[in-house]
């Protein structure tokens, strides 16, 4: 544990959790997004509605799921529906306020690559898991928040593959494609928070976590990152937030043998 009293991953998770307002309907990805969404639920947002693509609506897990379809999600959900129903009636139906996603690579517009790295699509250097629900979450959710640790490998000038975007370049593109959401609007990292410029969609660094410098962020970002005129500083994690998060991870380790999140 660094002398700050919390780890970079902890403040990233807590900063992401703070973005979820009470009563929000959140379509949750597994791993860090799930940890942040459940932290929000057990702290300031008890009525947040968590939807997992496995068909669990209003899940309230006491321990973090290791997979998107853990039994804990079904047991605590208000309703468990089929996978086609969750994508058609609930996601495509326009009922999701925010999509909470992770990624392997993102670009300056918050577009995501989880398909291939290096080589070609047919002969990639590294084959990643693929799209999953991301392309339609990015389109159908009213907005998308991405939670990802910073590194030049992850924050790149040009994606090897655009798996998920949520928008079409050009002013009228989205209207033509019937896109109703705003696409990726926020990226929460272990160093700070980036918010997309509504005009250009380019991510702008707006917030630094305590003790982090702009240089640290620039050094771990693969493009020439825009910096907001007046940078904010993330309020330090409260004792309550830290203990809630650590208790959640402790319960998860006790149940599963691990947290299901990168450390």
């Amino acid at each position: 544990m660094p002398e700050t009293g919390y780890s970079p991953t902890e403040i990233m998770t807590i900063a992401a959790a703070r973005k979820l307002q009470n009563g929000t309907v959140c379509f949750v990805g597994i791993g860090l997004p799930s940890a942040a969404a459940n932290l929000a639920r057990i702290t300031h947002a008890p009525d947040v509605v968590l939807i997992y693509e496995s068909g669990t609506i209003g899940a309230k897990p006491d321990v973090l799921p290791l997979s998107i379809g853990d039994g804990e999600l079904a047991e605590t959900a208000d309703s468990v529906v089929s996978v086609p129903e969750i994508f058609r009636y609930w996601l495509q139906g326009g009922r999701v306020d925010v999509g909470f996603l992770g990624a392997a690579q993102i670009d300056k517009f918050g577009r995501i690559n989880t398909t291939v790295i290096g080589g070609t699509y047919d002969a990639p250097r590294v084959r990643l898991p693929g799209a999953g629900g991301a392309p339609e979450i990015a389109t159908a959710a009213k907005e998308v928040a991405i939670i990802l640790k910073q590194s030049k490998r992850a924050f790149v000038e040009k994606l090897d593959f655009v798996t998920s975007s949520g928008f079409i370049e050009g002013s009228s593109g989205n209207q033509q494609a019937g896109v109703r959401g705003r696409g990726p609007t926020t990226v929460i990292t272990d160093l700070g928070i980036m918010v997309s410029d509504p005009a250009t969609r380019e991510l702008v660094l707006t917030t630094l976590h305590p003790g982090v410098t702009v240089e640290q962020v620039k050094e771990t970002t693969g493009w020439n990152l825009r910096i907001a005129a007046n940078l904010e500083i993330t309020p330090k994690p409260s004792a309550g937030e830290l203990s809630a998060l650590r208790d959640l991870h402790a319960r998860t380790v006790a149940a599963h043998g691990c947290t299901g999140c990168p450390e």
Partner: protein
Amino acid sequence: MAVFESLREAVATLVHDGDTAALEGFTHLIPFAAGHEVIRQRRRGLTLVRMTPDLIYDQMIGMGCASRLVFSWGGNPGVGSLHRFRDAVQTGWPLPLEIEEHSHADMAARYQAGASGLPFAVMRGYVGSDLPKFNKRIQSITCPFTGEVLTATPALSPDVTIIHAQKADRKGNVLIYGIIGIQKEAALAAKRVIVTVEEIVDDLQAPMNACVLPAWVVSCICEVPGGAHPSYAHGYYKRDNAFCKAWDVISRERETFLAWMNRHVLSTADFAEYRRSIAADLRVTSNA
């Protein structure tokens, strides 16, 4: 009408070389026992279809059963990558693996179209994504009423769908509960349907609006207790997370993978023997 057979008989008669086969399950009720039997019977040239290919597809791909994979997300849930899947795509070992890649929403819609007797599905998909550039099965269609341009993809209709469920009754009616995933659609979309079940009971005791497959849409039912291990069966046993982590090590190298598959799958007669074999060898703690 459903017949009751051993899994060996079911795979022998209902799964053929070159088939398009969907072994479905969305992180729950994954038909591992059935996948092992397909490996034992050395099926070849299969087009494997699955929204979420995981360990069992990693094993089938690594053992050379598949020439093609149709999928939307391939990984080891909560652990990481599928090394055999990666090796096949990246280096073509043991065989080149052609891939056809969609999103979850698309795959789910394609199964629905197959179950509905429609040739295609319509969705709002792939906005700004590169996937349609690499998959000609993702086309567009224009709404005749609003002029909106939407995504169209072809129906999925597997030659055979294999799923694992909690219960069947003695007539062959099947009850699935918990996270029901895409199993009903995958079964109704297929020409032939194999269902492995935890147990066969006198009365399903299904709630009125439960997910039930009537006996007459099922080809064959096989009683295989624990048949979803290392995934879980709601109401019966939990996921074996230790095994999923162990698999990451076992499958990393071709040699360790082949040795393990030979020892525990090819050298065992059925799933019960396989379970005893891995329990003795790996000390895998199964909750089954």
